[in-house]
């Protein structure tokens, strides 16, 4: 059994915590949109330290460290509410490292590593939410380009990003998972319209209309029509940082602080509730450890990651909901931390794979139950 950090990892954690002191009020974990210049500054500062490329091979400017270091960084960043891991340095960079050509690596990795280049995830469409194989956005090849037409939606940060990490259809319309390709689309190119969708957490998602937008063929990552497997692998790359458990510890600490200020922390019902939530925080930490163990040991870890996602996000809602119940009218005043958590947590069980999809993964892959979703 090994459940704690080793001395080198502890020392790295201390460095991370010291570094995060300067970003403790950034709150980019929840408010990246409105704080984008500062969040981008935070990413640049990480880039300077090499912390956006902790696990990349040294040949491409990485530090060649393992997933535990990435976990520590983003777990502490979540606790500090500083920011979430950028798509660029995670899914995008790791996929390029695995499937990109050397030319592509040279073209994209330096800007990502330094925290300059940022990407949005272009997977979801109005008719393809949980069911990604239903993607319709069409890329037609002509000479050295693709022309892309279609509609993406619920896209985070597109208003601030440089590129879209685009999943699109290059095969026949009914080719499902066998006709999809991955491309890098310039969000400033002609034919791109980004429209904001204000969201319940004071942020925004975006709809993206693509009308014959040009994507150079050299910006396709991996072979044509082969994106399905690549996308699945990329998900696995980020499992250990997808839902950091210390976000929950911070949530619960904030609630405890609030109940103390409101004089509720001696109330028997509140104490019982806090204790039960505290146990669940510890439980979610074990799920995160299981994910880490799987990733380190080179196992798929899909079941562990699904459990971590469901347990963590359901608990995040439980914490906020219980607190708002205890807090009475005072808890629903805008700007109160509980009120915000209540709203924000509403969508944690949806984004990044719904709880229903995740339970299906655990049931099928973990327990061998049924083929249906």
């Amino acid at each position, binding site marked *: 059994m090994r459940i704690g950090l080793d001395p080198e990892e502890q020392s790295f954690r201390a460095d991370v915590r010291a570094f995060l002191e300067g970003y403790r009020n950034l709150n980019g974990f929840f408010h990246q949109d409105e704080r984008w210049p500062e969040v981008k500054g935070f990413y640049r500062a990480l880039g300077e330290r090499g912390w956006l490329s902790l696990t990349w091979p040294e040949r491409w400017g990485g530090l060649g460290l393992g997933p535990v270091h990435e976990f520590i960084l983003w777990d502490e960043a979540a606790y500090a509410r500083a920011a979430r891991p950028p798509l660029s340095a995670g899914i995008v960079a790791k996929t390029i490292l695995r499937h990109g050509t050397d030319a592509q690596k040279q073209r994209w990795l330096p800007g990502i590593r330094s925290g300059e280049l940022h990407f949005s995830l272009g997977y979801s469409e109005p008719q393809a*939410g949980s069911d990604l194989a239903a993607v319709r956005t069409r890329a037609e090849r002509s000479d050295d380009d693709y022309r892309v037409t279609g509609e993406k939606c*619920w896209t985070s940060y597109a208003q601030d990003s440089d590129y879209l990490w685009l999943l699109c259809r290059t095969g026949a319309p009914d080719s499902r998972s066998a006709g999809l390709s991955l491309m890098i689309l310039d969000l400033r190119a002609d034919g791109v319209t980004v429209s904001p*969708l204000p969201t*319940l957490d004071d942020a925004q998602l975006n709809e993206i209309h693509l009308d014959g937008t040009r994507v150079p063929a050299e910006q396709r990552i991996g072979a044509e029509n082969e994106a399905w497997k690549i996308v699945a692998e990329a998900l696995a790359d980020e499992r250990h940082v997808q839902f950091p458990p210390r976000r929950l510890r911070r949530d619960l600490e904030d609630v405890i602080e609030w109940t103390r200020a409101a004089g509720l922390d001696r109330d028997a019902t509140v104490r019982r509730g806090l204790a039960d939530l505290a146990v669940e925080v510890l439980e979610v930490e074990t799920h995160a450890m299981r994910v880490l163990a799987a990733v380190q040991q080179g196992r798929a870890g899909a079941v562990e990651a699904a459990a971590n996602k469901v347990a963590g996000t359901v608990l995040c809602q439980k914490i906020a909901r219980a607190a708002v119940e205890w807090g009475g009218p*005072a808890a629903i005043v*805008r700007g109160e931390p509980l009120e915000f958590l*209540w709203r924000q947590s*509403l969508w944690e069980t*949806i*984004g990044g794979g719904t709880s229903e999809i995740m339970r299906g993964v655990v049931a099928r892959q973990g327990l061998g139950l049924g083929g249906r979703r």
Partner: protein
Amino acid sequence: MSFDLELDDAQQAIGTAVAQFCRDHPSVDDGASGDFDRARWRELAELGVLALGTPEGEGGALEVVAAMEALGAAVFAGPLAATFCATQLLPESERQALVTGDALVSVGKPPLLPFAPIADLFIELEAPHAWRARPAGEIEPVETLAGDPWGRVQLEREAELPEAGRALALSEIARAAYLAGAGQRLLDDAAEHARTRIQFGRAIGEFQAVAHPLADCAMQLSAAAVLARIAAAGFDTSESDPGPHAAAARLSAVRAALGAVYVCHQIFGAVGVTLEGPVFRVARRVRQFASEPPDEHGAREAVLELFGV
């Protein structure tokens, strides 16, 4: 005569009229305005809604239920339950301005008072007691989850108001009906979404993980709606203290409506994450209505009385 849990024709007509009014006067409330549409409030009053249950108005608690179910389905903003409380507590002379919508009332317990910055009358509540009151000092405005203008202020109590228990019961019945109506609207919308949204080649409502939680919501909401009607019928016949059944209706409706909020957000998925989408406008108002004073502790104690605890 058969058992019948539906409102009668005249009561249903009130609900229909209120629903039509709400369609004709859509809310400008965007959940982050801090505004309150007083003109619309007066127009609602012109329908006679705020006079329901008073000697000058129509009917009693069942009519209030009919109106509040429709207002809940439209997530209409305003001190609704508070107004029904106040019209029971105050004499006709003071009631007048409330039932016409010319005056707004704030009912609650300091320091945080609903609609305080724009209220004309204040009633301090410490169930089962109520006092006429007036602000002592500056009102610090705050905005709520659902975008309403509330305020922080201390109150000076004036005369205690008689029969507060009965007035509170009506306001709890009103709140329960509103929440049941709001929850039912969410359920209807989510069920429609589940019947029509296709993923993995079939309507998502075919998946038990979608269908069964909606079924649970439907059961809870139907029970909550009936409990509000039962409490209202008891209020109208005055056979016994209406408080405990009103309290039960409120607790049931809060649980059912919040349950619907959480289930329906899950079923709408990303569609429901948007500020103006089909869920959140209802969700935030349900949560707020459920949090308004008086708190649930008193309601629970009242229900325990029914079982002799």
